[in-house]
């Protein structure tokens, strides 16, 4: 590979990119749009959920607990019931989103330090589940401070149980932003290289390029490098919005977040190149990109829990870069894990990128037929 020729290609791409308003708008627009869409779904400040209340204790303490929960503003009273059963029916029918059940032996449990109440939510809506988490923070002991019970410093956690129906996996909303990094990179990176190469073919630039001494690897690598920079910029944008607006934690090292993103970026760019060797028009390139994008979204564990998928779907998911990236990024951002602890996924992404790049270079012909 000749460095001067490679650099010439890279600079040419960057210049063209800087003058291409539509692509620039997509680079910034797609992450912002997707974050806004999903951000609405993971809005942690959801308020006024319809709640059904079954206070079977009916003591001053239990009533105070209910009042405190209402005071958070997260819920508003929808129905009252003497027993939990009618609430479950209402929940199932979607008439209420949250059911608060206080058992008859509320006072006893409170003194014993056991769980004193149950918040049952429709877990199929992750929004509701996320919002209901706030109800678990309501103090129990202070709510009943007029009783003889000593104000014990028992941890609040665990005293109010959250029961999430229809979504036993309990996927947390914070899962979405790290996942979104992967989804956005998969969507834009594959598309950019696939379309960029096909566009050059359509405009006749490719006939000029292949009649020069440029080598296949110079052409292909030169196409990829500028978009690696673009991909890392996009990653930065999503992270900044995710951390700044949606308070998503980055528990592991930021450097490793970028390392994981870079792996996914290269894998996807190489896949885009491979598509470009096949696609005859920009439209076809977009169709093929979509064909890759759809299984990535559905099978990678972004939309549906990986563990719940059929075996065949899991196998298929293992050959999608997004699957491995999601494991890495959730590990690093949410659990604070190190990349090396998840080396099989690092290796899988690396292998994917290498195989795709090699295929793209060998399949690319410096010919018109």
């Amino acid at each position, binding site marked *: 590979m000749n460095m*001067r020729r490679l650099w010439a290609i890279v600079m040419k791409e960057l210049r063209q990119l800087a003058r291409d308003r539509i692509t620039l708008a997509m680079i910034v627009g797609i992450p912002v749009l997707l974050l806004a869409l999903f951000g609405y779904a993971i809005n942690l400040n959801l308020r006024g959920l319809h709640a059904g209340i079954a206070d079977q204790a009916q003591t001053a303490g239990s009533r105070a607990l209910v009042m405190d929960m209402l005071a958070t503003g997260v819920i508003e009273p929808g129905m009252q019931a003497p027993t939990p059963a009618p609430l479950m029916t209402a929940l199932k029918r979607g008439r209420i989103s949250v059911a608060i059940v206080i058992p008859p032996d509320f006072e006893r449990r409170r003194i014993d330090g056991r769980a004193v109440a149950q918040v049952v939510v429709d877990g199929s809506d992750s929004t509701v589940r996320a919002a209901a988490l706030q109800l678990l923070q309501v103090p129990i002991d202070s709510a009943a401070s007029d009783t003889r019970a000593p104000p014990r410093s028992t941890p609040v956690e665990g005293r109010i149980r959250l029961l999430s129906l229809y979504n036993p996996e309990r996927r947390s909303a914070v899962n979405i932003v790290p996942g979104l990094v992967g989804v956005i990179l998969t969507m834009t990176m594959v598309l950019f290289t696939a379309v960029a190469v096909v566009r050059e073919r359509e405009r006749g630039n490719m006939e000029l390029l292949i009649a*020069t*001494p440029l080598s296949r690897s110079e052409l292909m690598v030169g196409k990829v490098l500028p978009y690696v920079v673009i991909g890392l910029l996009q990653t930065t944008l999503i992270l900044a919005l995710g951390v700044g607006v949606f308070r998503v934690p980055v528990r592991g090292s930021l450097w490793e977040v970028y390392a994981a993103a870079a792996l996914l970026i290269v894998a996807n760019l190489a896949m885009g190149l491979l598509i470009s060797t096949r696609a005859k028009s920009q439209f076809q390139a977009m169709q093929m990109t979509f064909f890759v994008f759809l299984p990535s979204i559905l099978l990678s564990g972004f939309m549906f829990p990986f563990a719940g998928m059929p075996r065949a779907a899991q196998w298929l998911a293992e050959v999608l870069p997004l699957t491995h990236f999601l494991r890495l990024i959730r590990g690093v951002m949410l659990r604070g894990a190190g990349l090396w602890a998840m080396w099989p996924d690092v290796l899988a992404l690396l292998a994917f990128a290498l195989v795709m790049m090699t295929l793209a270079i060998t399949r690319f012909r410096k010919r018109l037929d």
Partner: protein
Amino acid sequence: MNESATPAIRVRGLTRRFGELVAVDHVDLEVPARQVYGFLGPNGSGKSTTIRMLCGLLMPSEGEIEVLGLRIPAQAEALRRQIGYMTQTFSLFTDLSVRENLAFMAAVQGVPQRQTRSRIDALLEQYHLADMQRQLAGTLSGGQRQRLALAAAVVHEPKLLFLDEPTSAVDPQSRRDFWEALFTLADAGTTLLVSTHYMDEAERCHRLAILDRGRLVADDTPAALAGALAGRTFQVNTQHPRALQPTLAQWPGVLSVAQIGASLRVLMAADADAAEDICTRMRDALRSSDAKVSVSAVTPSLEDVFVAATREPGAVEATSS
């Protein structure tokens, strides 16, 4: 003329099929070095396909190609350092400036880094692009684009230059200037292969190959090609050219009748009859329609050569069956 011993291009039985279609059909060629060699043919006659095969961009279906002593397509990569190729449609980057395009091509073609700047300045000057060097290539006029494309094709001073219909989108004055530039390159020792469908351009080439529906139908100097038609071209001056045209076209041995202003230009098939005899017979036959008709023999033009080459009975039978 400055002929060197070995030809720049040698082609034997070159054929290219696209499915059923035979785009190039057993073409034999020899292009002498340091000359302007023309490819004349109508659209779809296989000019671009032939040029692409010579550059190693398309695989031939059959035949042998040797360009600058290299076997193509096997040694195409080695050839690419020595050729320039100006594609039929503008293929530089419309969203890069004139100078950026030239700098890109200089880097890609391996012009030494120290010389790049002066080389580009010289090209900008030579091809009258200096004033618009910061302008995006997409905003140039047709003639300016052609000059930029030529400058880009010769940035590395190639030995051999392929130009595929370089003047098709250009006004007459720009075409004249462009051809001056081509001869300057030939004088400097470059071999040029230029395809065109303009007769006046073909006329200027040192040597000419006429392609028709993929077949090579003539190959010689323009003068020799025209000379071979001596005694076969006639001019009919008449009051009623449109009325006489169909009558003449029915005549035995007439290859074509074209109206040129108030006269008709008639091309006869190769025939043993002397030109005077044909003149007399034609005049006698046409008297009944126009008493004042006159017929005279005229010097053949390249247009006649082209028509003769593409309409000889043999050629017509071979391709219309």
